[in-house]
C-alpha cells in the first residue's frame, strides 16, 4: 500500500498502462522531461521519458488541433494515445477534433472504427485569470460519443485512468489543479494524499461513491467541491444536520441510481460544482431527478455553483465566484429551512 498524491497516482496509472500495453503512448506540450523539460505542466508525466523513451512520451508543438487530431488518427489504427492539455481552457482550440471527429467517428462510420483515446485536462480556478481557470466538464457531457470522468482521489485517479486508457472510446479526464499535490503549490490547494494498493485494480465507469452517509440531505459534488462539501458536512453535523455526500466520479456515464436512491432517503438534493450555474452538469442532474424522483423530494433542488462569469483574477473575486465551504454550509442551512 503506497501513499500517493494525485500527481503520483496519475503518473503511476499511465506508467503501469504503458508498461502493460505497448500501444499506449503520451503526447502533449512539454510533457517530456528530457533535457530539462517540464514533464508536463503539472509534472504528471515526469519520469516517463526515462522509462519509455522519446517516441512514447512525445513532445508536440503548441498545436492543440494537432495533439487532438494526431491522437484520434493514431487511435483509429491501433494505438492508445493519452493526450495532455496544459490547461483545460485550451480545449476550445480542439473543439472540432473532439466533438466532430472523436465523438462522431464510431457512429457515423456505422461502427467501422473506434477511437480509444484519452485526453487529460486540468481544470479549476487558481489565480491565473479567466483563460487558465474554467471548469469545463459540463460542455462535454452533452456530446454523445464522449465519456467524461473526474477523479478526485489518488485511489480513483489510478483506477479510473486505467479504465479510461483501456476504454475503446474517447474519454476526457478532468483533473483539478488544487488537488494535484505536485511541485507547483497552488494557493488554497488541498493536495490530498491517499492510499493506493500495490495490487492491480481498475474502477468501472458509472459508479458513484458515497463519501459520507447521511439522512437529511444529499449533496452531489465533484473534484475540489467534493472536498468542500465534505468539510461543510462535518461542520453541519455539529448543528445536527446529517449530509450524505456523493462523488459521481464519472459524469458520462452518470450513476443516477445511486443519487436517486439517496434522494429517496434524504428528500433533499444539492449539487455543488465549479462549473457554471447555467447548464453546468448539475442542471442535467437536477432535471433528471425532477423527472424521475420528484415525489421523493421535500424541497426544491438547489445548485451551488460558480457564478455565470468568466473567472476573475482578483483573489477576492475568484474566491467569491467559486463555491466556498461557507457558501455550501449557508446553502444547506437555507435548504433545510425550506
Amino acid at each position, binding site marked *: 500500500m503506497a501513499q500517493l498524491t494525485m500527481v503520483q497516482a496519475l503518473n503511476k496509472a499511465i506508467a503501469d498502462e504503458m508498461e502493460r500495453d505497448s500501444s499506449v503512448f503520451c503526447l502533449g506540450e512539454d510533457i517530456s522531461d528530457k533535457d530539462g523539460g517540464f514533464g508536463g505542466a503539472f509534472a504528471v508525466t515526469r519520469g516517463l521519458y526515462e522509462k519509455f523513451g522519446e517516441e512514447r512520451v512525445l513532445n508536440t508543438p503548441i498545436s492543440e488541433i494537432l495533439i487532438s487530431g494526431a491522437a484520434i488518427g493514431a487511435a483509429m*489504427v491501433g494505438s492508445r494515445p493519452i493526450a495532455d492539455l496544459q490547461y483545460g481552457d485550451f480545449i476550445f482550440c480542439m473543439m472540432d477534433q473532439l466533438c466532430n471527429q472523436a465523438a462522431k467517428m464510431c457512429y457515423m462510420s456505422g461502427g*467501422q472504427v473506434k477511437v*480509444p483515446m484519452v485526453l487529460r485536462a486540468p481544470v479549476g480556478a487558481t489565480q491565473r485569470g479567466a483563460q487558465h481557470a474554467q471548469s469545463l466538464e459540463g460542455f462535454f457531457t452533452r456530446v454523445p460519443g464522449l465519456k467524461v470522468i473526474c477523479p478526485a482521489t489518488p485511489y480513483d485517479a489510478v483506477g479510473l485512468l486505467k479504465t479510461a486508457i483501456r476504454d475503446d472510446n474517447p474519454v476526457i479526464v478532468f483533473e483539478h489543479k488544487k488537488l494535484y499535490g505536485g511541485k507547483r503549490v497552488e494557493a488554497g490547494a488541498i493536495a490530498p494524499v491517499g492510499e493506493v494498493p500495490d495490487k492491480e485494480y481498475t474502477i468501472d465507469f458509472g459508479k458513484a461513491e458515497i463519501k459520507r452517509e447521511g439522512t437529511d440531505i444529499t449533496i452531489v459534488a465533484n473534484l475540489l467541491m467534493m472536498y468542500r462539501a465534505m468539510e461543510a458536512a462535518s461542520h453541519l453535523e455539529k448543528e445536527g444536520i446529517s449530509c450524505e455526500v456523493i462523488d459521481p466520479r464519472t459524469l458520462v456515464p452518470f450513476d443516477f441510481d445511486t443519487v436517486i436512491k439517496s434522494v429517496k432517503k434524504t428528500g433533499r438534493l444539492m449539487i455543488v460544482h465549479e462549473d457554471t450555474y447555467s447548464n453546468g452538469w448539475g442542471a442535467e442532474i437536477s432535471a433528471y431527478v425532477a423527472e424521475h424522483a420528484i415525489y421523493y423530494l421535500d424541497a426544491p433542488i438547489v445548485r451551488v455553483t460558480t457564478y455565470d462569469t468568466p473567472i476573475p483574477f482578483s483573489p477576492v473575486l475568484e474566491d467569491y465566484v467559486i463555491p466556498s465551504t461557507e457558501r455550501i454550509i449557508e446553502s444547506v442551512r437555507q435548504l433545510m429551512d425550506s
Partner: protein
Amino acid sequence: MEAKMLLEMYEQMDLIRTYEETLYYLFLEGIMPGSIHQSHGQEACAVGMLYGLRKTDYMASTHRPAGHDIAKGVSVKDMMCEMFGKEDGCCKGRGGAMHTGDITVGAIPANAIVGGNIPISTGIGLSLKMQKRDDVVVCFFGDGASNEGAFHEGLNGAAIWKLPVIFVCENNLYGASTSIKNTLNIEDIALRADSYGMPGEVVDGNDVLAVYAAAQRAITRARKGEGPTLLELKTYRIAGHSRSDGCAYRDDVEEAEWFARDPIELLKNKILKEKIADEQILADIHEKNEQIVNEAVDYAIEAKEPSVDDVLLNVYWEGD
C-alpha cells in the same frame, strides 16, 4: 505493363464518373435522399494517387469522397446502399454521402469538416511509424482546406516527426463559390510545403500519369521513412459544388478551357493514339461499369432500411 495500367486506370475513372452521374440523376428524379458533391473532372487525381496502393495503406477523404473511395477499392454496392441510407451501406446508413469509406480496404470513413482529416492523417502516420509499418497515408483535401488552421498544424506535425503522409491538395480553383483569387495570395499552394520543410510539387491534376508519377515519388519517400510530401494537383470540377449548384460564379471562357481538358478524354485519347485499345474496348469497359452501377442501384433500392430500434448502436464502440 503500362498498357494494363492505363486500361485499369481508365476503367476506374470511368466507373467513378458513371457512379457519380448516376447518383446525380437519381437526385434529380427525387429518388435519392440527401445531397452529393461530385468529383466530376477530378477523377485523375483520385486514380493517379491511389492506383496500386496496398490495402494496408490508408486514404483519408473529404466531403467529396466517391472518387477516392472507388479508387481505394470500396465496393460500389456498399457505397450505393449508403447513399440510400440503407443498413447494407458501408456505414450502415449512419454516415451518408460525405462519410463513405471502408476501413477494411484502408479507406478511412470520409470527413465533412473541411480540413478535419488533415491532423487525423498525421496521427495515422504517427501510429504507422510507431508500429514500424512501411504503409502510408494519402490525405486528400481542397484548396479551401489549405486555409484552415488544421492544415498548418497537421502538416507541421507530419514534417517534424517525418511521418509517411502524402498530403494531396486538389486545387480546383474554388472553395464552394469562392475563387482562390480571393482566398490565396500565392499562385501555388505547393509553396506552403517550404514553410514546413517538406517537398512540395505542382502537378497537372487532369493528367492521370503525371499524378501517378508524382504519387510514386511521394509514396516511395514516405515508405523509406523520409517524411511527408505536399502535392498540389491543379484541376477543375466540371460539375457544381453540390447538387443544386449552377456555378454562376464561373465564367464561360474558364469553363471551356478546362472542359476541353477532361481527364477521362485525355486518357482516352492517349490510349487510342498509342493503340493500347480501340473504341470498342473502351465502350465495353463503360458498359461493364454501367452494369455494376445499375446493379448497385437496383440492389440499394430494394435493400432493407435500418431499424429504428438500433439507433443507439455505435454511439459508443460495441466491442470487437
